[in-house]
């Protein structure tokens, strides 16, 4: 599902990622951890092509994402659900609309899109807030809307950047359980986190990034 070859990313002469090689098979659950500034978010951004690599290549679902045309990249991104660290919700849209609009431009009719969005929101305990605008939601609620949006179109790959950062322990546990269910249904999941309680709660392949290099690749604890 994911292949990285000699992946290097430099910002203003500072090397964030230093020639990373990685292979993630379809259906895997993977944690990406490391100290702040280790390159976790940058690695995820390179996977959904919000950034371009300085050197090396990124393959997702068999396609080299850093060389795709804009249209093909849009189509690939529809197979990838991303939970952004800063949520990236549309501020003019309600909770329901934020989840619905990604389904609409994927071709779902208004009624089907609303039904599916409502189901996902209900699963995340947000259905009672469906008409609220993001600005009136708490950080945790906004994070769950972002998660709902990423899950709504049942992507083959889910990339989550600190998805439990604003959630309490109970909600974080529920989210992890939800991600496990989705993974069980065949989706590949990559979660960037520095929350070690998550790693302990879920036995999965874990990558530890340190100064732009993969320091450890195996089960938790190292």
């Amino acid at each position, binding site marked *: 599902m994911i292949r990285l070859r000699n992946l290097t990313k430099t910002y203003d002469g500072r090397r964030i990622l230093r020639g990373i090689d990685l292979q993630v098979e379809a259906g895997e659950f993977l944690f990406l951890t490391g100290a702040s500034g280790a390159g976790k978010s940058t690695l995820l951004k390179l996977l959904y092509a919000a950034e*371009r690599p300085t050197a090396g290549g990124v393959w997702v679902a068999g396609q080299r994402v850093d060389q795709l045309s804009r249209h093909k990249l849009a189509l690939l*991104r*529809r197979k990838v659900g991303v939970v952004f660290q800063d949520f*990236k919700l549309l501020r003019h849209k309600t909770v329901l609309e934020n989840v619905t609009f*990604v389904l609409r431009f994927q071709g779902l009719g208004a009624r089907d899109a609303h039904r599916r969005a409502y189901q996902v929101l209900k699963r995340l305990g947000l259905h009672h807030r469906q008409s609220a605008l993001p600005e009136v939601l708490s950080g945790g609620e906004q994070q769950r809307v972002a998660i709902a949006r990423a899950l709504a179109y049942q992507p083959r790959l889910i990339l989550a950047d600190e998805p439990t950062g604003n959630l309490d322990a109970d909600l974080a546990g529920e989210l992890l359980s939800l991600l496990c269910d989705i993974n069980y249904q065949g989706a590949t999941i990559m979660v960037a986190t520095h929350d070690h309680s998550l790693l302990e709660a879920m036995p999965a392949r874990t990558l530890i990034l340190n100064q732009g290099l993969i320091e450890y690749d195996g089960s938790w604890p190292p």
Partner: protein
Amino acid sequence: MRHIFEEGLALLRRRGVVSVILAMSLTVPMALAGFTTSMGLWSRPLVALESHATVVRVLLHPRMDVSQRQAWIAEQARTHQDWRLSEIDRETLEERLQVWFPYLEDLLEGEHAIELPTLVEVEAEDPEEVTALAEGPTVIAVGPTSSIDRVLGLMARTMTWLLGGISVILLVSAFLLAATWIHLEVYRNADEITIMRLVGATESAIRGPFVVAALIPGIFAGVAASVGAWYLVRMVAVAVEAVGLSPPVFPLWLVAAEIGVGVILPIVAALVTMGRHARAGETD
């Protein structure tokens, strides 16, 4: 497609007042462009006057006898095949002159009667060519080469070009206005556009709502501009009719043209602006 239309309407609702201002701002230059086009069309028949042949009068030396005059006329007709030359007979010339100079009758009769020169009328497309005849020894004088028709035609042609130029400038300003509005809207919504790209929206899904949001004020502007231009033309028509001239009209096809421009201008402006924005946000 329906989704894009709904998103466009949502964008319009969100920016209702600004959209109304855009429609009104487009209406003014488009109405003026429609007005200037109508006036240009109205003045077009006058332009044709400029190319009408002008009659230039040439006086030949009185000492020339009939055969010399005929030889001269034949020579000119051969040299300038587009000219039409006709000699005015003495009686006609006398009649014409006596209208202006009644005392001429006495001068033309009696023992010391003056000898009138021969008048030849030359009808030419380019009257300036006729003036060259004055250099010959047989020609006493060549009459004025300008005519009111030519002056009117020249004025009308100048006016047509001027009004056409103003129309183009007004339409370009309308285009720039729409492009600037869309540019501001795109940058106002830059974060949302970035998010849409990140979650897999294609360029058409992103651009579509902006095109719709610009198109609807454009259509309203087209209709309003047609009404405005018609009213301005009507006002001129009333004034022109009062002095007994044929009034200008606002042709029906110009209504379609105004609405067409109202549709095309914002679409082109939206596509150009969004294209620039898409290139700028390459990695988003």
